[in-house]
């Protein structure tokens, strides 16, 4: 059982939990993820780490309440327990001194991006950061990102804050010498960023989020095609070279369980119980 040390609402439906998990905290690095199960009957869900504190023995996870499990997780409060947390899983993101790094994050994934960006900054990189969401209420960690970046751009799909699309990146890439890029967020976003940086041959790492089951390389549910080869996101990733990822396939595979997920959400909302 893993106790929740603190709970913070980053935006409506987006929550940040600090979970007491000493052993995971000791080894956790940016890019790692955990798989947790809220209760005995719960589904196992992978969540990318948004931070850790070795001294306190805690890890941070941010999530958007979009499905049955995240809704349930969001209903827990400080002092409540999560049934189990496995981790850290996956490979840590490559943190090195590259020079000028472009960091792009969307939605709830801005939280793990912050974890990674801070590490990049700590080893001496200069950061140009773009964060965004569908609408301004869902843009999270503005101040935290501002602190570690030499410039920060905000983008919202509906234009309620900052730019209303990523096209400005085309000009930005013309005027700045970017040495490395990181994109975490919706598939469309990661795909777009990779396409923008491709002509400049800027190494662009993306953090993938396919359907996942065990998270330890046994089941193959999270397979993705990278550079024509099949890779397991859990054991080979989750960070991959964005210029080699087959995003189209990733999108198709992620939708496999949409009708079932919908029914599960409906039941949870209607009866407060799982099937």
């Amino acid at each position, binding site marked *: 059982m893993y106790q929740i040390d603190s709970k913070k609402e980053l935006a409506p*439906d987006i929550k940040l939990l600090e979970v007491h998990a000493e052993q995971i905290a000791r080894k956790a690095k940016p890019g790692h993820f955990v798989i947790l199960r809220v209760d005995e009957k719960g589904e196992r869900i992978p969540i990318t780490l948004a931070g850790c504190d070795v001294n306190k023995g805690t890890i941070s996870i941010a999530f*958007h309440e*979009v*499905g049955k499990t995240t809704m349930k997780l969001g209903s827990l409060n400080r002092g409540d327990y999560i049934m189990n947390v496995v981790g850290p899983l996956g490979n840590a993101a490559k943190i090195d001194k590259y020079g000028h790094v472009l960091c792009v994050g*969307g*939605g709830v994934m801005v939280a793990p991006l912050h974890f990674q960006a801070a590490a990049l900054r700590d080893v001496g990189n200069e950061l140009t950061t773009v964060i*965004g*969401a*569908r*609408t301004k209420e869902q843009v999270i960690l503005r101040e935290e990102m501002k602190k570690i970046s030499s410039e920060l751009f905000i*983008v*919202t*799909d*509906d234009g309620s804050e900052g730019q209303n*699309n*990523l096209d400005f990146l085309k000009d930005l890439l013309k005027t700045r010498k970017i040495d490395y890029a990181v994109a975490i*967020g*919706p*598939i*469309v*976003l990661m795909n*777009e960023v990779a396409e923008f940086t491709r002509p400049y041959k800027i190494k662009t790492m993306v953090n993938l989020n396919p359907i996942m089951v065990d998270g330890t390389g046994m089941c193959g549910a999270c397979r993705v095609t990278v550079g024509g080869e099949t890779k397991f996101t859990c054991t080979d990733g989750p960070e991959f070279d964005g210029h080699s990822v087959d995003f189209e396939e990733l*999108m*198709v595979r992620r*939708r496999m369980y*949409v*009708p*079932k*997920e*919908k*029914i599960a*959400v*409906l*039941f949870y909302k*209607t*009866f407060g*119980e799982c*099937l």
Partner: protein
Amino acid sequence: MNKSKEEPRIGVFVCRCGSNIGGVVDVTKVVEYAKTQPNVVHAEENFYTCSSEGLSKIKEAIVKHNLNRVVVASCTPRTHEPLFRVTCEEAGLNKYLFEMANIREHCSWAHMHEPEKATESAKEIVRMAIAKARFLEPLKEPEIEITPSGLIIGGGVSGLTAALSLSEQGFQVYVVEKEAEAGGLLRKLHTLFPSGQDASDFIKSIVELVKGRRNITLLTSTVVKEVNGYLGNFEITALQNNQREVRFKVGTIIVATGAVSLEPAGLYGYGQFDKVMTQLEFEQLLNIGLPENLEKVVMIQCAGAREERGITYCSRICCNVALKNALYIKGSNSNTDVYIVYRDLEAYGRGYVDYYQKAQEQGVKFIRYTQERPPNVMKESDGKLKVEIFSPIIGKGIDIKCDLVVLSTPLIQHQAGRDLSPILKVALGTDGFFLEAHPKLRPAEFASEGILLCGTAHGPKDATESMAQALAAASKASIPMAKGTVKTEAVKAVVDKELCVGCGACVAICPYNAIEWLSFGQPRVIEAACMGCGLCAAECPMGAMQLRHFKDNQIVPMVNSLFELERNAVLKKEPSIVCFACRWCAYAAADTAGVMRLQYPCSVRLILVPCSGRVDAIHILTAFARGADGVMVAGCLKDGCHYIDGNIKAERRVNAMKEALDVMGIEGERVEMFFLSAGMPDKFVESVINFTERINKLPKLRSAREREESAPSVSNRF
């Protein structure tokens, strides 16, 4: 004034339809019942609501009672809704604030011998319509500008005929032809039947006409690479000579990509003996000149067609082609023996039987074979061919030694056609040819607005038929272009940003690419491209995507209203079944069943949906939670969906729901998917009867009331 925000003031008009409804249903009782419903401020009965008198009564009542919703309980909305909508508009009421209850086709005509049950059923149907009416919203029909130019893909006889027609009407036309020369298949043919006219002369004259037209741009050696946009505003990118990109904008697109003749490799010695050729190759040979000293020619029909698997269809034209070429041989040299070896001779069409008789008179010999024992072609030592035929008529084999074997092979779809299908996002049928929106009602159109179809791209046809369809497609295309603007349907998808979580499920399921996925996950509906099927709304896990006029909060109240009251004793023995019926097929089939007076149990209440793919898990779940004994989801035949494959998506959802119900301890077989067409009233009735029986055989579910009273756990709810 926003009428939707006001408290609903509903007027209900119940039609007697002479004795059609009034002879079975107690209309007066239904009117009295309607008056007891919340928000109903006026209810009356009419002898014929659709008569001018009836219509003026609606208009008067709208003014007198300050109605902001109108319900007419009469016949099917598929025929009469437009009339009543106009009437509402004339009285100043937005036409989308009108709702119809079908108590004729689905009630009085379906339950003619059970007047009491019919009356109670009519009450339920009216109650459901009133429930939806409360939540109706006024809608605007957006107008879109139409670019007055057309793209024709394919420069064969169909494409060029369509191009000339559009050009004559004054529209700019682009013809894109993949070959270096326009003219298509006709360029290769020898003569046309039944006129015997020279095919290449004929097509040359059409090509010359096209080239002479200033408003036609003929792009040869060109293929369409990309198509974006929607009716009135298509952006086309084509590639000329494999290098130069050409871009232009058109209002409509006509697909006239034609077909190719099958090359029957391995069949009847084709590819093995050089004297075995297809009819097409034979015609090319005739263009050079009929070989001299031909003693015997054998033509084998259905070569590679009407197979068990693969090409199963009849290519229609080959029998006439064989007759034409046989007559030509006979005409050139009456001493040459011509044999037509056939399975079934289909000299369909005007004047073609005369053609067949003429061939018989001139001594062409017809020998039948069967699919089980097809002819066998081999080469003799003297270089001649021998055809062994088993005649089922005389029960014996016949051997013919001949100079030439000509195979009548079917027309088939080509790779370029298959490549075009995903570019235009239009469907191909199981036979590989392009699929029209409806074989009778929209034979020259695709389901996507502004994209039309003609010629052999649509299936085997002769030149006459292709040209007729080309003219049909051109005139259909010209309608919006002549108008300049078109009012589009108001029934479009709309997203609630507050509820949306940006999962992209709607983007993925949309058959028309009408939903854009923005960088951070926000979906955006391109209204002009949205066809209003509602697949996205049913797919959305959050209920954020909705279809106007068929929103969850309009459909769910209909379901709720059916179960909000205890069933009248008369109907109590009938199981309560909700049928979500696609307006194109199941709803129409139920209408026809009514017209044919087919009788079925009063168990089923229909809820009209634009496509079975609109049916959401929440609709089905609500029905069961409220007390339904069964739910039918009825969509079009498997390859007949008006929205490409909405019915298949619906089936997938129904199957997921079955599993969920099973887990909850109520039988998954209480929900079922049905596939039928508008022309299958008997299948609709059979489905209702069988499904009602199936439900009756199952142990009775506890009533909704009993469920309410039990502990609030999922399994106890049902």
